[in-house]
């Protein structure tokens, strides 16, 4: 019963997103496609942070790795979208794995800073190799590089459906992971590392695996962003883009499967709405964040889970 309820909720979300494809006004249609791509990034962040307790400030490095793997391949080597997505996935995973080898020797605040520093080095590297990346200005991904087989990712409908497909796979894998024994070990690591160690689990390998999965998600999202929206620039690898998924996850609810999507959705429309009511729109955004967190300190779904919906995965 419990299992069905949770699964139904997630399938229901996917069904709603598919229905939205038919019914949505043009503006919101593209927005949701964009939000789904960014939600994949936030889900990846959530796997490291929400489930495993790894508070990273350097995820832009993984997102950027995917973004530039796909972007540079298409720009300099006539890569296609298929190779771009695979390369982005691989780049995100590899970079996360390599970073994990170093950074996971630390924990807590030291982990935050080590990841922050590596990501900063990554951002500066993009600038340093400006002759290939065009640095902060960035590059436009050529049309040929945005073809996924015969699917043109610059077409609105195709983009939405491909974003949906990637999002659906990411969501279901996340759900499966969260309910699998491995997912429970991750949570155990977050809750009490010592006790998990005594039960025979190696914290380092569990965390490294979680961080690598997180990197795969982030890299895929970065690559998808570059290919679907046709742009790769250094600002997308800057520290703001490390804070963004953290914010999405905290707003939606850390350690919940739908939380990252909900947070990304909320944040997008918060900014969008605020900027249409007032010029001083950061007041509205800032005040809304403060109020939201005052009334839902565990994020929206996290607070709902505490107040009765205990079955929420």
């Amino acid at each position, binding site marked *: 019963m419990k299992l069905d309820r949770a699964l139904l909720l997630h399938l229901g979300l996917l069904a709603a997103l598919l229905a939205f494809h038919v019914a949505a006004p043009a503006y919101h249609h593209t927005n949701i496609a964009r939000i789904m791509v960014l939600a994949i990034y936030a889900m990846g962040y959530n796997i490291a942070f929400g489930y495993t307790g790894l508070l990273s400030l350097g995820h832009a490095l993984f997102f950027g790795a995917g973004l530039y793997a796909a972007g540079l391949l298409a720009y300099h080597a006539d890569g296609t979208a298929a190779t771009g997505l695979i390369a982005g996935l691989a780049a995100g995973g590899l970079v996360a794995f390599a970073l994990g080898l170093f950074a996971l020797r630390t924990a807590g605040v030291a982990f935050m800073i080590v990841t922050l520093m590596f990501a900063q080095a990554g951002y500066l590297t993009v600038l340093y190799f400006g002759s290939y990346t065009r640095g902060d200005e960035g590059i436009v991904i050529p049309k040929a590089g945005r073809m996924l087989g015969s699917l043109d990712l610059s077409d609105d409908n195709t983009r939405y459906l491909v974003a949906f497909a990637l999002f659906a796979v990411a969501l279901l894998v996340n759900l499966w992971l969260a309910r699998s024994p491995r997912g429970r070990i991750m949570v155990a690591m977050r809750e009490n590392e010592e006790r998990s160690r005594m039960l025979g689990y190696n914290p380092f390998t569990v965390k490294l695996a979680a961080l690598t999965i997180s990197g795969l998600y982030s890299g895929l999202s970065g690559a998808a962003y570059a290919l679907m929206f046709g742009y790769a620039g250094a600002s997308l690898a800057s520290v703001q883009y490390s804070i963004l998924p953290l*914010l999405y996850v905290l707003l939606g609810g850390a350690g919940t499967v739908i939380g990252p999507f909900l947070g990304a959705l909320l944040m997008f429309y918060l900014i969008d709405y605020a900027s249409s009511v007032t010029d001083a729109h950061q007041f509205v955004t800032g005040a809304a*964040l*403060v109020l939201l967190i005052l009334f839902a300190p565990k994020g929206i779904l996290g607070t709902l889970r505490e107040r009765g919906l205990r079955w929420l995965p």
Partner: protein
Amino acid sequence: MDFGPFLLLALMEGLVTAAVLALTASGLSLVFGIMRVVNVAHGAFFMLGAVLAWFVSQWVPGPAALSFAVAIVLCPLIVGAIAAAADTAVLKRLNYEPEATIVATIGLLYILEQAALSVFGPDARPVPAPLNFRIQLPWFGYSGYKLAVVVAAALVLLAVWLILRHTRAGLIMRATQIDRDTARAFGINVDKVYAGVFAMGAGLAAIAAVLIVPIQQAHYLMGGDPLLLSFIVVIIGGLGSLRGTLVAALVIGLSDGVISTFFAPTLAKIVATLAVALILVLRPQGLFGKRAA
């Protein structure tokens, strides 16, 4: 220019960076060390100090030194009061839950930046230095005010150290840091201590900003770099260690300048950044932190 003077210049520049950084970071270190709060708005408090210093320079007539003197007293007080209010109105209600405070202080950051943009405007605005002399060395000239900043920062840091070590207020803060519940049991009003610490942390950032603004100008987005750097400095130094914060500020301030004498500037930044990360990988507790904190 020969290598020697080149290095000397890099060291002097590094010293100025380090002095201001140490001051900003000591504020964050207090907040972080005592309250265990990641204050994302710390850079915004820094910015607010600089912006207020500009307003003071516009309102106070007479020589620049006078308005500067007013600013160095008034700005930290105002910024501290704003911080204390934010603490009481928001952070306390969140029970200083680490994750919730991150979101709340991001919200605060938005609000403060928008306030600066709406009232102060988007332009960078200069504030005159209180003293204007230039030191002419055989190889190059150097701003006398910059050296004064180093001295002033050192004095403020000394004062903070004295307060923490030798006053009752300092004792209470340290007691709260070590064990919040026991402190409460001994009749310490922890809420008040926290509000005070948060205000003091923000005030220190504001002092640093008032000192730097004659060199750097006030701008509503100037808080980003000091936030990141002081964060790094606090962790590298070791949580709760003022001495560590000071040494880490020197390491970071100087390494940047010295490394940039050997590499292309952007490459130097990359190397310096990775070096700092590796320090932490090798010593996760920071330079002066206690193991297994």
